[in-house]
Each structure stands twice: as C-alpha cells, then as structure tokens.
C-alpha cells in the first residue's frame, strides 16, 4: 500500500468514526442572514517599506552574480478574509505587491526595475465533524514548536521567519485531519502535497506526517513521524516545561533513518519589568563545516543544506521588551552566533505604535563575518524601515 493510500484510508476512518458523533451547537439568536453576516471576518494590512543593503563581492556571490539589489522600495496590500458558518471555516489571504529595485553592483550596476505581483499566499477550507475532528485542505504556513531560531522538528519548512516578522513566510499546500481526542491529547495526519510559494533547492516531493500532541499541567510535548516520497523517514519531537512564572525551558529536534539528526535546547527568563531574555543552542549533524561557505552548496557539496541555517552549531541570544521607554515602543534584539566559522548575525527590530491603526517599524541586520563565512557572504548589512496600516 502506498503512503498516499494509507493516509487516505486513515482519513476515511476518521470521518466515518466521528461524523456520527456530531453534537448540534446551540444556534445563535437572530435571522439566518444576520448569522451568515456575523460569520465574516477581515483584517486588512497595508505596508510601505524601503530596504537598503550592501551586497558582498564574495566566492558565494562573485561580482553580485546572485543579482542582489542595493535599494528596494515595496508596497504590499495584505487582506486576510475569513468566513465561518456552523461547521465550515473558509479563509483566504491574497497578496498584492509592487516592488521597485535599484542595483549598484555587478552586471546590473545602474539598472532599475519595477515588478507587480498578485498571488494567494494562504487559503484554507476546514470542516469540523462533531467537536473533535477537523478536516482541512489549503495553502498555509504551517508552523509549530517553541523554538525561536528555527523549528527543527518541522519536516515541511523549518524556517520560522523570526529574523524579520514583517516579511511573510510562504504558504505550502497541505491536507490535514486533526482529532482533538480530549483536553490532553491531539493527533494529526498531515499531507504536504505541493511546495506552494516556497522556493526549494531541489524538486518537490510529497511528505506525509503523523503528529501526536500532549498537554499536561505546566508541560507539553509532541512527536512527529514523517516520510518524504523517495526520501528519508524522520522522527521529530518538541517539548516544553513551565519551571516558574518567569522561566520556561524547551527542546526540539529530529532524527532520520539516514542517521542525520538535529537538536535545539533553549529557555526564556522574564524579568520583573516584563522584558524577556531567550537563549538557545542548535546542533545539526548534517550541517556543513567546510572552511568556505561556498563549498557547502552544489556542485561542491552532494547534500542539500538546511533551508535556513547551513552550519552545524549555533547559539541564539534574544531580548524582548514590548514597552521599551514608552508603552508604544517594542524592541527585539537578536544575536545568532555561528560557532563553526565565528560569524554572527545581529538583528534589531523596533516597532512604534503611532495610533490604533498604524505602526512605524525598522529591522536592521548586521553580519559580522568575512566573505567566506555564512553571515557575511551575501550582505554585510541591511536596513529596512516602513509604515504599517491596519484596518
């Protein structure tokens, strides 16, 4: 039996087993039409931002062969639309972007370009059967786990986009069946059927996963068994514990049947003033420890590097304060330390709330490494600043 047929059978069993357990929900007061109207929800965000960066002339990007622009100006319209009626939930997140870029390095020196793009980053149709089973299909940015640096237990996309929260992570195509067994246990069957908006180094192959979640008093944990077609079978896990009102600890990792493994351990401490410090260490046995970062990539390497971090050993230090100087200013300082080549990436995120609808934001990244190191091979710094409007 193929994995696809196996999952189809299990989903069918889910449906048959729990459709009969349907409990009618109390109908809200009001007419059918007003009930329908109440089901609509929306959140519309408009972003205008500029980015300045300095592409490095390195062995990984000789004479800016990757075509990294020096300046960029972007306008984005991000409507999030939802509709819920009885057991059905629909959601769609179309995106409309206009981007202007100017190059001052390499063959494109002096060139400018404007590009318009319209696409659907995420959409989802979800059906609830009874109070326990949820079936869904759509394109979504599926993330889990407590880690800040990346999510090594996630077999679909370990990158969590935390370095720059203003840039959206791409949605991938998933079919899911979630069974909320009780308040302690949940199990999910997940089929990743398309790469969606994600750019991959290699050809996309379907991945299937079974995820079991446990939630106890002050602790939680999940295990994930996954298989990629014509690829490895992988066992992943994450867990966390609330040590006190201020201290949280977590662990996350995975191992596959080709003996490649990764592990992340970390914790957070919240100070009396509410600001929070986070520390993490990450080890990836499949990471590249070659001297030059260029040789970690094809054709010099025969394995595909991790999608977000390429070396073996990393540390993360993060400081977060959502009322820095004033109640309207949020600060995140983030340092990613590469223990293998000694390069570091320092990130400062500032968000200032102008009023109920608008925020000013800036994200500054500074790579301390040399041209042959991971953090420094493409760009020494980048500064992003912009305005967000929400309605």
């Amino acid at each position, binding site marked *: 039996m193929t994995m696809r047929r196996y999952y189809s059978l299990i989903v069918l069993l889910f449906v048959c087993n729990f459709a009969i357990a349907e409990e009618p929900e109390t109908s809200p007061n009001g007419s059918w039409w007003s009930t329908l109207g109440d089901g609509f929800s929306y959140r519309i965000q408009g972003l205008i931002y500029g980015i300045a960066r300095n592409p490095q002339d390195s062995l990984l990007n000789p004479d800016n062969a990757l075509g990294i622009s020096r300046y960029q100006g972007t306008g984005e319209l991000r409507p999030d639309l939802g509709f819920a009626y009885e057991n059905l939930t629909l959601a769609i997140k179309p995106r409309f972007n206009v981007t202007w870029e100017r190059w001052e390095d390499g063959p494109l020196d002096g060139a400018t370009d404007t590009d318009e793009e319209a696409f659907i980053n995420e959409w989802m149709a979800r059906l609830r059967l009874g109070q326990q089973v949820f079936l869904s299909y759509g394109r979504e*940015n599926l993330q889990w786990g407590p880690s800040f640096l990346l999510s090594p237990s996630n077999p679909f996309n370990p990158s969590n986009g935390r370095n720059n929260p203003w840039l959206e992570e791409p949605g991938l195509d998933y079919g899911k069946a979630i069974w909320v067994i009780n308040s302690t246990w949940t199990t999910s069957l997940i089929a990743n059927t398309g790469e969606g908006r994600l750019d991959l180094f290699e050809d996309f192959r379907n991945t299937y996963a079974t995820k079991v979640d446990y939630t106890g008093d002050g602790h939680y944990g999940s295990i994930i068994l996954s298989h990629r077609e014509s690829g490895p079978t992988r066992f992943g896990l994450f867990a966390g514990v609330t040590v006190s009102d201020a201290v949280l600890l977590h662990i996350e990792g995975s191992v596959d049947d080709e003996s490649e493994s990764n592990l992340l351990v970390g914790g957070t401490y919240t100070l009396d003033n509410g600001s929070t410090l986070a520390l993490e260490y990450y080890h990836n046995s499949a990471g590249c420890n070659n001297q030059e970062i260029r040789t970690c990539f094809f054709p010099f390497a025969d394995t595909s590097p991790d999608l977000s971090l390429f070396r073996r050993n990393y540390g993360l230090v993060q400081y977060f304060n959502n009322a820095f100087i004033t109640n309207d200013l949020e600060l995140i300082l983030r340092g990613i330390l590469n223990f293998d080549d000694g390069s570091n990436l320092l990130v400062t995120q500032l968000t200032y709330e102008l009023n*109920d609808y608008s925020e000013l934001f800036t994200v500054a990244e500074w790579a301390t490494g040399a041209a042959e190191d991971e953090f420094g091979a493409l760009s020494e710094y980048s500064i992003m600043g912009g305005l967000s409007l929400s309605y």
Partner: protein
Amino acid sequence: MFNNARWHWLLLLVITITPTQLYATSVTTMTSKEVLTEADEARGNLSGVEWELHMQTDDSKGEKEMTLQVQARGFDVATTTLKPARSRGNRLLMFKDNMWFYKPGLSKPVPISKRQKLIGTASYGDVATTNYANDYVSISLGEEQVDGVPCLVYDLKATHSKATYDQIKYWVDKDRLVGIKAEYFTVSGQKFKSARMEYDNQVQRDGERKPFISRIVIQGELLKNENTVLTFSDPVLRHIPDHTFNLDLIAQ
C-alpha cells in the same frame, strides 16, 4: 407562661435574628478554601464563560488601550484581540499552566510566561481566572472593613512556583464572598502592586444569580502613577469545547 405581648416580641426577635444567624453560621463554618473557591468562581472559574475585556493603562510610559474577547473554562483562557485594529486577531492561549501568544503575520505561536506584561502593570497572568483556592495556602488574618464592607482577610502563599504571584494579601467580601481587594508581594516580601475588584455583572450559577467580576483596577506600588483598569462586560455562560484551547487550531 407568656402573654400575647411577650409572644409578639419573641416572634419579632426570631424573624429579625434567624436569617442573619443562619447566614453567619454558613460563612463561619466555611473553611478558608471554600471561601476562596467561591471567590475564585466570581472571577470566571466556571465550566464555560465568554466576555469582553477592555484594558486601559496610564503610567509613566504613556496611555494604552486594548479590547479582548475572552473565552474561559475553569482556569483555561483563550483571548482574541478586537481592538486596536493594528492588533486585531492577536490570540492568547492559557491552557493547563502553559501560555502561548499568536500574532497574525508572525509565523507561529510563541510560548510566553505569566510574568510577561500584556499592558501596563497587568501581566498575562492577570487576564487568567484566579485559582487562589488551589495555587495558594491561606492563613486567616481575621476580619477588616474595606470602605465600610466587612471582609475576611487572608494571607496567601504560593504552593508552587508556577503561580503568578508569590504572596497575596486578599480581602473577601464577607456577605457576597467575592474578593474586593488584593495586595501582591515579591518573594522578598516587598509589595509591588495592588488591585481593587468590583462585581456589577451577574451570572446564573447553581440555580441563582450570582455576582461576577466587572472591573479590576491595578495600581503599581513602586511608581504610584501606574494604573491599569480592566473592565469585564457582557458575560455569557456557554459550553466551551476542548478545541477552543487547541494549539493546532489557534492560527487562522
């Protein structure tokens, strides 16, 4: 033995005294834990309740407002930010002493601690329903009046490190069995904030209308001008299913 006038006086005495005596007996025979359990239930410790929570802070770092829709069951809470528009859809999940925060646009829910500040002097733990009856060991400090209201006073010490506060001095209205004043202390015994609670809402519980939390004013003690007001409105009792608190379903 008794003439008519004496019977009338005796009857009047019985009518006047009996309800008070019976009530006094019921309160005085209650254990501290039973009193605290009653007081907890007026703060949302129910099988399922939904309400809207408006939060307003005014301190040395400026003013800020926020409105949340809150779903609570027992000591588990799920909130969705309604206002301001820039924060709409932010979600907070407090489930079995685990807390998670999700922001649309951020890629995933992140674990947070009870001590992290939600707004002004209010921590995330302040939005949660109280569990003083089980999270704290209580010592009765006798009775005091707060603004003319007779109160039972308790010194509460946390029984485990996951409780939001290490030590609390708690005043419970003797008649209504609701907590109306609290002072919060650090491990070293320093008072760092205090709160006054009002119960103008009502819910149907155990077959009768009972008072329910309507307003909490939190005052910072270190900086006297720190002031956060939590206003609870429109409480509605309804069954909250398990999936409301499921992390896999929190992201929309």
